[in-house]
């Protein structure tokens, strides 16, 4: 795409701002900030990727994945600020999901271990693990609040903390997995996934694009389930005292 063509894309933003002004939506400021941030962040990522691809160097790849994981964990852990050591727990969950997903795709020889595959795939794994973490922390909080009385009943009858929250954990994991499951059911019917669209525009054959898309979708489903299950098990003990008492918040 030429630079002129790239600049023309900003006419969409101008259009959105005109609509916002006309309808007094008050979104102009957010639109400007959002547009600037998207531009700067994506351009920066583009140049960094170009650099890493040219270096073809393992340490750089690992470093980049590490940075992505830390940023993702920082972002998602803000959803559970009241929980002790939440950053570390989210970091472990996202890191484990990334290792699992990348390990499988590389180990089974599905893609080649080159930066060209590893970095974008990791980006998607880690990004979705981040979304899964945020969703899980939200749904877990909702579950514990709305099923507090049941948890107390179970404890009073001699259940351990884990036994008392197991239903809530299950429901929270299920709730946080709904977006990806819904996505699997409607993909291709309602919308073409962004990555596939990108590949096709970039010149790949639709069949090739579909193959990669399937890989991504299945891997992402596994990543989301894996992240939320691990995180739920890391987080629930902090809701209880060692004497299996539900801590009030």
């Amino acid at each position, binding site marked *: 795409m030429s630079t002129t063509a790239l600049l023309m894309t900003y006419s969409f933003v101008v259009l959105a701002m005109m609509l916002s002004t006309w309808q007094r939506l008050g979104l102009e400021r957010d639109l400007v900030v959002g547009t600037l941030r998207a531009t700067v962040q994506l351009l920066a990522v583009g140049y960094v990727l170009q650099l890493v691809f040219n270096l073809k160097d393992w340490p750089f790849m690992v470093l980049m994945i590490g940075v992505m994981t830390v940023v993702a964990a920082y972002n998602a852990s803000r959803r559970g600020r009241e929980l002790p050591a939440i950053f570390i727990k989210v970091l472990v969950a996202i890191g484990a999901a990334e290792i699992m997903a990348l390990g499988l795709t590389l180990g089974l020889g599905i893609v080649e271990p080159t930066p060209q595959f590893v970095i974008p795939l990791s980006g998607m794994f880690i990004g979705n693990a981040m979304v899964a973490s945020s969703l899980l922390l939200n749904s877990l909080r909702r579950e514990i609040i709305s099923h507090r009385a049941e948890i107390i009943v179970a404890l009073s*009858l001699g259940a351990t903390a884990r036994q008392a929250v197991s239903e809530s954990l299950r429901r929270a994991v299920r709730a946080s997995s709904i977006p990806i499951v819904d996505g699997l059911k409607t993909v291709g019917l309602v919308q073409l996934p962004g990555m596939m669209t990108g590949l096709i525009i970039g010149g790949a054959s639709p069949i090739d694009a579909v193959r990669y898309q399937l890989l991504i979708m299945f891997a992402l489903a596994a990543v989301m389930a894996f992240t939320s299950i691990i995180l739920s098990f890391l987080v629930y003990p902090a809701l209880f005292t060692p004497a*299996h008492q539900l801590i009030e918040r």
Partner: protein
Amino acid sequence: MSGKPLIELIDVWKYRHLESGTVPTLQQISASVENGSLITLVGPSGAGKSTLLWLLNRLEDPDRGEIRLRGRSIKEIDVLGLRREVGLVLQQPVMLPGTVKDNILYGPRLKGAGEREVDAAQLLSDVGLSPSLLDRDAGKLSGGQRQRVALARTLANRPRVLLLDEVTSSLDPQSTARIENLIIRLNREKNITVLWVTHNLKQALRVGREAWILVDGKLVEAGTLPGVFLHPQNALAGAYISGKLEGVEEH
């Protein structure tokens, strides 16, 4: 076990942290419970009766003081075993997911026991419900039915001490009488020690041999029935009792 009380409360304090500040809900509670006794706990709403039962089941711990069972601090006893031995029927009869049978067998199943060891149908009829309810979704029961299933659920753990928190508040007089008789029988025949919170003084007089009167988080009166209701020594207890008895007569 002669001489030594089954349960001792030694200078027990419990605070609640509210937005307006920290307030004591139990203050300076010292009392003891003899093995095999049946004590009723009465007092105005908000006096701290439920909180006291929560502490005995260790759903919470006191902020100060100590609770002992057979001379040992309950903090030194395995908490899971303690909660089975000192069984609590909560004030809100909340059902767990599943059927009535799932609810009644919840405690035994935690220990790997099931229908062979625990007769859920018998427990259900003990509390005055038809065994045909066993496979009913517990979430679909009426308030009165839940209350009785909650009692059966706690009894399924075969507790040695039974903590009851207003367990007949949604029941008609006939069902209430049935529960009262059941508890009295468990107390007399199985020597189960009972602490029974009730806001109904007549019920306390019917079932209890002793009563504790709690007002504003303080144990203001403890003694045998009916004397403790007829001649309370403490002014707060007296005010509560006379107000309550007037209320009963009005209806």
